[in-house]
């Protein structure tokens, strides 16, 4: 195994400019959508006083959760000392920061008063898990930035392990915090469950790794560098394990809910007769987001195909977005139980299932955040030495020869 050499990608090809150009257009569209929303107010969105969080939050929460998971590769190398993952640790950390920034941008631009960001940064209510999250997000960016610096500055390399440890623990807390945003809401039937926190941690592992694998495979394919089968196969198996864990947590979440009679209503809504939410859960999350990728990863006809793995990663991401939609929007659409045993009617939509139809503006804002994260990664690999020149198995795999025998 040779010493790993890092170099910027050239980034002068037509393909690179096309990529940055297309992403830039999506970012611009998202920016315009945000301006439009702020100029008019939220009446131009599908969000209402009944469904108060919408499409922007689906994307923002997904990106934030994926950000934490994108750090997987770096964590595995620094914390669990797996040498094969080490060369990709800088890319993993950079992707994590970019995804988080993308998600936070969406979250901030959706605020009713985005120009009061300074207020949000200076006034904290420490009882609020939301305020905690702001500290967790900023802290994550700071810690991972230091981590990236320690990994990229050769003479500081020896210390990168400690920053890796810090980042690892920090991001576990971060995803716990994000899950708790929902877990701590006692008011709504679909939330108010402690399992939300660990479930978000597990989801972050799967979504983050899927995004990372796509970014890694694209970077190597499009820059004409070599990426060994060993790396892909190793990560793909890991992804399979994470998807299985997500399935397990979903099962546990719904089974615990079903045990209590008071939750039968909301469970029936999500699992049986909730219309779009039921469909999204079974087809989106379970079929597209879990079972199909598992099949692609472990079935012996597809498991060695890189195309199948790319498709599996894309499906995991789509399934993740769909799961976020079910949790965030579905959880709000189900009526709050204020008067058990009564039929409730009012001039403020009490009693019935709330409707939500996202408009173009809020969807573009969400997509813009995704594109922003990806464009930042594209620029980062061009200006920073974070991508190994070769990820060929013989260059990075410490057990390569042993296996080749």
């Amino acid at each position, binding site marked *: 195994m040779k010493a790993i050499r890092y170099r910027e990608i050239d980034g002068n090809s037509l393909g690179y400019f096309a990529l940055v150009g297309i992403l830039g257009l999506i970012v611009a569209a998202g920016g315009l959508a945000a301006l439009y929303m702020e100029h008019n107010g939220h*009446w131009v969105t599908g969000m209402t006083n009944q469904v*108060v969080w919408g499409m922007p939050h689906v994307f923002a929460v997904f990106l934030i959760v994926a950000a934490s998971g994108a750090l997987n590769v770096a964590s595995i190398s620094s914390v669990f000392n797996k040498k094969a993952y080490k060369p990709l640790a800088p890319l993993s950390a950079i992707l994590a920061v970019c995804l988080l920034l993308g998600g936070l941008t969406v979250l901030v631009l959706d605020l009713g008063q985005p120009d009061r960001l300074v207020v949000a940064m200076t006034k904290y209510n420490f009882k609020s898990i939301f305020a905690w999250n702001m500290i967790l997000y900023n802290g994550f960016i700071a810690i991972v930035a230091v981590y990236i610096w320690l990994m990229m500055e050769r003479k500081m390399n020896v210390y990168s392990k400690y920053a890796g440890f810090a980042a690892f623990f920090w991001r576990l807390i971060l995803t716990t915090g994000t899950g708790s945003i929902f877990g701590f809401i006692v008011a709504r039937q679909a939330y108010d469950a402690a399992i939300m926190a660990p479930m978000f941690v597990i989801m972050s592992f799967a979504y983050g790794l899927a995004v990372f694998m796509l970014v890694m495979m694209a970077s190597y394919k499009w820059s004409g560098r070599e990426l060994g089968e060993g790396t892909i196969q190793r990560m793909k198996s890991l992804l399979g394990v994470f998807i299985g864990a997500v399935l397990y947590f979903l099962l546990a979440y719904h089974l615990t809910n079903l045990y209590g009679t008071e939750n039968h209503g909301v469970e029936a809504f999500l699992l049986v007769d909730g219309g779009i939410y039921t469909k999204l859960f079974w087809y989106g999350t379970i079929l597209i987001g879990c079972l199909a990728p598992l099949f692609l990863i472990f079935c012996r006809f597809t498991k060695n195909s890189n195309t199948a793995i790319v498709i599996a990663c894309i499906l995991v991401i789509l399934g993740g977005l769909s799961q976020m939609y079910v949790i965030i929007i579905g959880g709000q659409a189900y009526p*709050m139980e204020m008067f058990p045993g009564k039929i409730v009617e009012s001039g403020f939509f009490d009693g019935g299932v709330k409707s939500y139809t996202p408009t173009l503006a809020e969807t573009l804002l969400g997509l813009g955040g995704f594109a922003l994260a990806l464009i930042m990664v594209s620029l980062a690999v061009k200006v920073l030495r974070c991508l190994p020149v070769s990820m060929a198995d013989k260059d990075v795999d410490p057990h390569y020869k042993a296996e080749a025998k």
Partner: protein
Amino acid sequence: MKQDTDMNRRRFLGQAAAAAGLAVAPGVMLYEVQARPAGEAATSKQRWGMLIDTTKCEVGCNDCVTACKTENGWGASETKSSTEQQAQWIRKVKLTDKQTGHVQSLPLMCQHCETPPCVDVCPTGASMKRADGIVLVDKHICIGCRYCMMACPYKARSFIHESLSGQKAHAPRGLGTVESCTLCVHRVDKDGTPACVESCNAKGHKAMYFGDLNDPNSEISKRLKEFGGQQIRADLGLNTGVRYQGL
């Protein structure tokens, strides 16, 4: 204009009376002045609350809601928002028992909890509870994240979805911030009664009582002591300031 003149006259008389009360002799009051002086902060000696007798609340009557709209200036000003986006500080809810078909009616608004979930979750501290138990939104530092709306078990809060103009001087409200029932805090601070309660009494229903829950001699305390009162979603243990009878 007529109404304004009346208001001014009333204010003038009130001030004159207060001056007369003070003028008799230092330290001697002819009558007990109820209102807290303007320069004094609200304290936890009081806890303002409301009692709603659902047996007296008439199905189909909307007077409390109308009075609140008139008093605080919401309802007519939002022209672009859809009905699901328009503000609703107080609403009438009709309940029909699934088993017996018994029908009840009640007004529902911010319940002014002792331990309000909205205050707990607010990241900036804009959601706040005054010392005397009134739960308010400090719109100066509200960033419009709507987490309080997610957390409120009563769906009592509204987000303003469009630019407003022509607000009432005593009820500032505007784009991109969250708002809810203030218990007519501007009236309460002048020893007044919330507009909804006043309108309910004016109609002769007398289904709503307002007063100090900490004062055992207040009418609301006496009634609660005698007849008891329920909280909506009592299972959450929020110790609401708004109580219901006959629920």
